[in-house]
């Protein structure tokens, strides 16, 4: 980086702000009416080669062309992106975005339902479309965040939510994404056994319920009342919805894997702090890992200081399917790119690292066909930047979500504008 770059950052910065609408606007984006062609930039497709001097065309929210000499349809809005980069928008695989506003104020937090077995609660219905944090995530290049309930043993069903829209129904991208399970602390035998027993009982009850409901109409089968909890678990039992299991310590991870196999459910390991110690098992059992988060210290005094930063590299070297989720707090969803970035500082190849917040979460979350890379047929959820999306200094100039050009406005920028106005007036008065 040199002086030129600093100037260019500043210019871009000014450009962003000068284009900002008035206070309190922050409107959801307008549906893509005409085709758009992003022309002449570096297109980081992620799934394939990076294309220099490339063009991306999208229509009705879907990418129609990607290439160097792409044909631009008549009537298309042409955006000159010479010297700039196009990346696929990022996916945050585990967040409290939309479910929490200010963590210390309980009334603003909808994360953890009463009781310990809550397979039926659905994150999307509590996704607060007006949350101040959603536009922040959006301007930082996140098109989708998986709103994830917490607490208890079975926390509920997570939902992949768009970061743009008027209300939650518009913003649901995929729901349910997964049923969330929290593995107990294995060091305390009593807690461990009680929790695992409760979990097994829930699955057992759900299976009996499923069998009874499926037997409806057969001879001698009376009417069975509905049970909302077990009803919600049927897709999990059928393997249609995976379980995301929060487990960090070796004993938790190994126990969870055995359990999932026994219960015959699709498991994704979430957290996985000690995953580096059980790589062969993860590989053999083909368990995907959502690493969350990467930035952090070691959990044991003797461990290497960079242990946490090197976990993605270990998973990559071992050929394990994984992706990276960032901070859980809603205000810090915007830091998502910093996590793979820190893994790069400790040996993860940069191109690989970009995938961990784009293509890989799309794969693990089950919408690889529409998200995660710049490919024809996928959603036009794209980011225009002045540098690599993972670099700290990179400025995101424009975000498109399903082809919609979103306002690059958020709480941070609004307050910046407001108080710059104060200082500008002081100059005027002098």
């Amino acid at each position: 980086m040199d002086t030129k770059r600093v100037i260019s950052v500043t210019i871009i910065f000014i450009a962003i702000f000068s284009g900002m609408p008035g206070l309190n606007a922050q409107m959801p984006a307008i549906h893509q009416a005409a085709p758009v062609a992003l022309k002449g930039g570096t297109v980081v497709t992620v799934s394939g080669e990076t294309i220099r001097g490339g063009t991306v065309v999208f229509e009705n929210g879907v990418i129609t062309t990607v290439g160097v000499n792409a044909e631009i349809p008549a009537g298309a809005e042409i955006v000159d992106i010479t010297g700039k980069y196009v990346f696929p928008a990022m996916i945050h695989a585990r967040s409290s975005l939309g479910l929490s506003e200010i963590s210390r104020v309980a009334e603003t937090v909808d994360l953890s339902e009463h009781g310990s077995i809550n397979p039926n609660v659905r994150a999307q219905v509590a996704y607060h479309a007006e949350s101040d944090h959603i536009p922040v995530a959006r301007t930082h290049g996140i098109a989708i965040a998986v709103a994830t309930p917490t607490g208890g043993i079975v926390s509920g069903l997570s939902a992949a939510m768009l970061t743009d829209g008027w209300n939650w129904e518009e913003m649901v991208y995929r729901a349910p994404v997964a049923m969330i399970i929290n593995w107990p602390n294995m060091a305390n035998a009593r807690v461990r056994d009680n929790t695992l027993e409760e979990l097994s009982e829930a699955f057992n009850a759900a299976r009996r319920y499923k069998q009874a409901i499926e037997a409806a109409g057969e001879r001698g089968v009376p009417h069975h009342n509905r049970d909302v909890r077990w009803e919600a678990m049927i897709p999990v039992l059928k393997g249609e919805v995976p379980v995301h299991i929060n487990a960090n310590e070796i004993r938790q991870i190994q126990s969870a894997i055995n359990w999932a196999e026994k219960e015959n459910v699709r498991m994704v390991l979430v957290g996985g702090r000690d995953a580096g110690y059980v790589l062969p098992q993860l590989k053999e059992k083909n368990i995907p890992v959502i690493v969350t988060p990467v930035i952090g210290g070691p959990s044991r005094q003797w461990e290497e200081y960079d242990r946490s930063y090197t976990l993605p590299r270990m998973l990559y070297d071992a050929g394990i399917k994984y992706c990276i989720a960032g901070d859980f707090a809603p205000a810090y969803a915007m830091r998502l790119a910093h996590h793979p970035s820190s893994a790069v500082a400790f040996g993860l190849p940069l191109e690989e690292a970009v995938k961990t917040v784009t293509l890989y979460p799309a794969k693990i979350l089950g919408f690889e066909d529409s998200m995660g890379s710049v490919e024809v047929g996928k959603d036009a959820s794209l980011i225009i930047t002045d540098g690599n999306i993972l670099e700290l200094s990179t400025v995101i100039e424009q975000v498109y979500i399903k082809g919609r050009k979103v306002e690059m406005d958020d709480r941070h920028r609004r307050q910046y504008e407001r108080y710059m106005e104060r200082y500008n007036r002081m100059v005027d008065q002098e």
Partner: protein
Amino acid sequence: MKRLVYFFIAFLMFNANNAGGQTLPAEGLRDNTPFVYAITNATIVISPGNIIENGTLVVRNGVIEDVGSGIQTPADAWIHDLEGRTIYPGFIDLWAEIGFPDPDEAGRRQLRALNIPAEYAEIAAQFLIPPSEQPASSGAVHWNPQVRSWFDASSAYTYDEDRVKRYRAGGFVLANAVPPAGIFRGRSAVVSLGEDDNTRLVVKPDVAQVVSFERSRGLGGRYPTSLMGVISLIRQTFYDTQWYESAHSAYTAGGRGLERPELNLALGSLIPAGSGMQPVIFDTGDEIGFMRAMAIAGEMSFDLWARGSGYEYRRLEVIRDAGVPVILPLNFPDTPDIESPESAMNVSLEDLRHWDLAPENPGMLSNAGVRIAITGSGLGNNKSFLEQLRVAVERGLDQDAALDALTLTPANLLGLEQHYGSLERGKVASFVVADGNIFERSVKVEEVWIDGKPYEVAATGKTDLRGRWQAELDGIGQIEIEISGTETRLRGKLKKDDKSADLHRVRTDNQRVTIGFRGDSIGVDGIVRLSAAVAEKELFGIGEMPDGEFFNWKATRLSDHEESRNEESRNEESRRPALMSELRMLYPSMEYGFEALPEMPDNVVVRNATIWTQGPLGRLENADMLVRHGRIVEVGRGLDVPRGAVIIDATGKHVTPGLVDPHLHSSIRGGVNEVGNNMTPETRIIDVIEPDNIWVYRLLAGGMTTANLLHGSANPVGGQDAVVKMRWGALPGELLLEGAKPGLKLALGENVVRNTNQYPNTRMGAEQIIRDAFQAAKDYVAKQERWERERTGIPPRKDLQLEAMAEVLRGERIIHAHAYRQDEMQMLMRLADDMGFRIATFEHTVEGYKIADILRDHGAGAIIWTDWSSFKVEAADGILYNARILLGQEVLTALHSDNTQLSTRMNWEAGKMLATGIDEITAMDLITINPAKMIGVDEMVGSLEPGKHADFVIWSGHPLSGFTHAEQTWVDGRRYFDREQDMLMREEVRRERAALIQKASAAASDSQGSGGQTAGRTAGTN
């Protein structure tokens, strides 16, 4: 011989009524039983190294009348032949936890019963150990219930048979009984461990003041909650003692018209200790606590005795040079839980090292010339003192030194060497009889004599039922019963003809034995039950058949339990490998510790780097930096390389100043907040710096070299800060950056109003309490100045709270004020204006961007996060552009971490600022020179300029890139972190852990079956 002892015991019991003091009037008949003994044919250890073979010891009325070989036995003496036995002077314990109820005991027992992991014990204690409802004391005592210096052990000592017996079993005859509770626990008393009237048992009152760093919850009182609060209370109390003495003498001399000073027994009782006339025993806790006690003793000039911790070896030189007597417990840790690989993973190298090295602590201290006295305290309930003592001897403690540490040294320290400590003529006849060398395993202490009277200590006549018995069951027939198992858990087998079956049950309470077995073997259905009176050779009992029919039975012993003796001695031998530790000493003694301080080369040249000077030279490409003796000499292109210089080729690399974090709460022991009061300016972080914290090393690995360690934000007026450098391996005091501007923490907003039980509850009140405190400091200064001028009346009291506030008013101490919202910052700046000082920095300054011009005009710096917001209401307006706006309005701005892990990656934090439009050099300023200015260390660190400390970081690439890591971190011209070195150290950590886990595995498997313990949990993870 045994019978003789029984006789004595019975005799004593018979006379118990008459065992009163010399002033006690006779009740009933007078007791004139003679107490004259001649102990003959024994090996007598008069004192360490002075041994008489085949000697005689004459005891008359509790005193050694004569001792030697071939001496005349007085005709009136009762002869006690101890052939084959060895007699030692009785042991003296300088820290005995006996004689007083412990107010926390019930709660502790409850905690133990719940088996709460160590890391949660402190939290659990808050709930389980309630403050006592009764006021702990009445009368003119201290306002703080933890200050019990008035407590006099000699007036409260109660004979506790069970505990005293345990001490006797360890060979102890005399004990310095320490009061159980409080920070100032009171005055100890030396007591004899015999059984007698209290007036005879208390040998010497008022021996020492006893002080602990830990409060007793059971005593109640809000303050202090933190270690720094405890230390402040200790210091203030000693200062108050000085004042108390002078105030009372002024009042006595000054006559009428003076305000009467308070009467305070706690302070009055401390006068002898405060003036160095009486020792103060400090319970140190660990080797750093030892140094804390030394610092307080140095400041207050008292005579320090340290109650050791077992960790002294980790800083042997410091402990030796302190010249302080150490009362040493033999509290060697249990074998860590390394049963499975994953449980071993949760044990730190620090704990493994301590397990391996702790048994050598006594030997190392003794060999280094430290004056040690060994205490029997601190062992927990399951360990025998003598076993631990033998471990210490096997692991390097010289036998004579051990005996000295148990006899002469404590006798001398107590000033009782005239009467105790050796078996010379004329001394008190308190001694130990063992069946061999007491420092060798399997040797038993048979008797302990105290004040000329014998006490039996070996297990009292327990009958070992184990062995083979021939039983005759009336009307049923003969069976053979074999009883085995351990003494506490018996097992057994039954044999009839060629059939054999396990016994269903064998139990004994040493009076009756009960046995149950299945009737199959004798042809009946159900359980046959037997019981009998316990005896050595023959058992006579009754039995009940399954059908309810009673019968009599009798059994005769065929043989003793064959294995018992063998098994016991084998286990005894194998319990702990007597292998001396092969570990190198590391500083700190843990993972990634150094064998020695990294060397400081005369000259270091970093060549061909991009050097970010953060000074007038700006950023230089392809530049060199010359460092000499820890200071920067020159930065520029093509510098001459001095002969012999260490050359670092940094081509393609970047070099920046060592990073500076102006706000961190790491490496602080015993609480970051003192929450026992809303005003705690007396608390000092310098008192509680914890250098042996792995994060010091991890911070270095992230390029962090200097940090301001701050008190937390629970109180409107918090505590005094400490600016440290990350000198990994150094002592607490050595971490301090000399010349830093002392600071005081203030706090505003949500945190300080949260506790609705105390003032303030609003931001309005927060202003008033701070204003009130500064006004009080002004009045305080005025009063002191008047005293200095006039020197009449009662001298003013030194108030550590107001001293700190007064330093702020004088400009000697700067204010770091925790604040989020603009309103409270404005308020505080106006308050400071009124009081005549300046707010040096606001901390967090979340809404700083809203009043940047006002901050600038006041001269307040802004210490901020890059992107923290919305975790509480007052943080809702945190924005990424805070720094950009502040810098635009020319406010001195810096980034802080407030979080240890974040502090290891401040270069990335600064990197984030680039995306908000801040230029690179300015972004780097935010984590180097700017924070250095704000904590008053910019003359020394924060930039790479000639004359400054050679604190610098070599980065793998652009230091503000997210893809960059630190490769080397230098402090004071010493290479403290080097990634290549780190890779080697990882191997070393792995290798050392593996070796210790192997050793522990061997020890754990050896001790199985002998009841050897494995620790349930260790607090290994961090």
